[in-house]
């Protein structure tokens, strides 16, 4: 069975220019912030935003280059006490916080491969792309488990 047979095709996406305020508003009714794909106008997948990136907004400095620094002390940020300006909602855009290094899965990959990647990378969902790199859906671990239950006849 291929990933495209089990994935969700209706996905909420954001663009690089989406502001933090708009991003938070889009997911205001959610209990858990999902993995949000960042796409260009042509649905080319450019990055992802996870709840980690939202927490990073409270950090003083969070560009990619910090990942290259050895012996870096962890920054202890108390998100309840830190002063943060109201303007940040409009000043911060998705491009400032999104991850550009992420795992995506081709739509024609087998669901076994998707499950293996989820275990390997400790993730519960992946964006699904076509051959041109366009976002075509999202696949989560529950989609795969449901497919397995269906194959075994436990659910119809």
């Amino acid at each position, binding site marked *: 069975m291929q990933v495209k047979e089990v994935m969700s095709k209706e996905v909420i996406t954001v663009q690089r220019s989406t502001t933090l305020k708009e991003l938070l508003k889009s997911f205001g009714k959610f209990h858990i912030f999902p993995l949000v794909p960042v796409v260009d106008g042509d649905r080319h997948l450019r990055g992802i935003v996870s709840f980690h990136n939202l927490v990073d907004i409270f*950090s*003083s*400095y969070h*560009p*990619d*280059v*910090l*990942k*290259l*620094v*050895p*012996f*870096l*002390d962890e*920054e202890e940020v108390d998100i309840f006490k830190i002063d943060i300006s109201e303007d940040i909602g409009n000043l911060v855009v998705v491009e400032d916080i999104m991850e*550009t*290094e992420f*795992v995506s899965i081709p739509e024609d990959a087998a669901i076994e491969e998707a499950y*293996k990647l989820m*275990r*390997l*990378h*400790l993730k519960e969902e992946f964006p699904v792309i076509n051959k041109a790199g366009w976002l075509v859906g999202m696949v989560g671990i529950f989609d795969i488990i449901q497919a397995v239950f269906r194959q075994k006849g436990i659910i119809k």
Partner: protein
Amino acid sequence: MNTILGLGFILTAGLFSAKLIKRIKFPAVTAYLLLGILIGPSLFKLVPEGILNSSGLISNIVLGIIAFGIGQNFSRYHLRKIGRPIIWISILEACGAWALVTSAFLLILKQPFYVSLLFGAIASATAPAATVMVIREYRARGNFTDTLLGVVAIDDAWCLIIFAISLAISQAVYTHMMAASFLIKVFFNSLLSIFGAFVLGAILAMLLSLLYRFIRTQTELLIFTLGFIFLNIGLAIWLHLSVLLSSMFLGAILINSHRYSFKFFDALKCIDSPLFLLFFVLAGANLEMHILPKLGIIGLTYLIFRVIGKMMGASLGAKISNAPESIRRYLGLGLVPQAGVALGVALIAKSDFPIVGEMIFTTIIATTVIYELIGPLCTKYALHKAGEIPEGH
């Protein structure tokens, strides 16, 4: 104290001493070093012999892991993104410190060429962690801050290359001083060390990519990555190649050739902290206190000329790349801190040159402590002069 008890003591004491020193706004590295000096054989003698004897083993492992991580700097994406000013400034400030410290040791202190060259190479390193700490503390932002961070992040990569070349030349000079074919041997040895390290890194990166398809879980990924880093270090030692360069090349080739290469680097993050702690405490413990009084003028020359070299190099790099005036004037001051990579390469110098090695290593530890204390103040001053520390900080 038995070895395991000693390890437990170092890890817990290191953790709490870092927490303590963070209250007075200094990086954890400084706490580890000072703790090492305190509990080392020169003072309280609390480090068991077994751990002290394995300093070489631990430093080789830690340096291999660090150099592997530093290889990420050479990803095509990163190199495209950082731009001309950072490349120019970082290369010239590293080479500036290298050239100036080497010249000062050779011409003013009349030290042998190979000793001067080693001091010069070590001087090219900086301490990005200390710089980041200051940037975070004062919530600095702007073009100057971005450039400074970009420069300190890639500087260690240049340092590893400069040190590998200098070490190869120094070893050749030291071994073949009397040989008639001296220059050819120096050239051949240097080339072999660098090219061999590249080939080793490339072969292991290919093998790693090939075997990756058998890896199924995060635990396996950690064991797999660590296994390849150890294979690389061990083979480099066995083949008399540069451990630093082969590890860096392994990281650099991997980051450019494998789709999910960033996962190999991420996997190491859960085990590197205790190893780094141990490395710094042992570096402090290896300090030969009795040599310190003899190092006054050597230490002072190193302290002064390294900073001048970095400032002049950074300024020249900024001029060539048409960077703004504030970067031209003050960025060099932000590069004063020195820590992990300098200590690591000094440890290699110590083990490769038994006679002068202790003098080099002790000078680097003593100057590291001084640089780690005054460096953050210089970085803060540079950020302040560049106008990138917000009001109220």
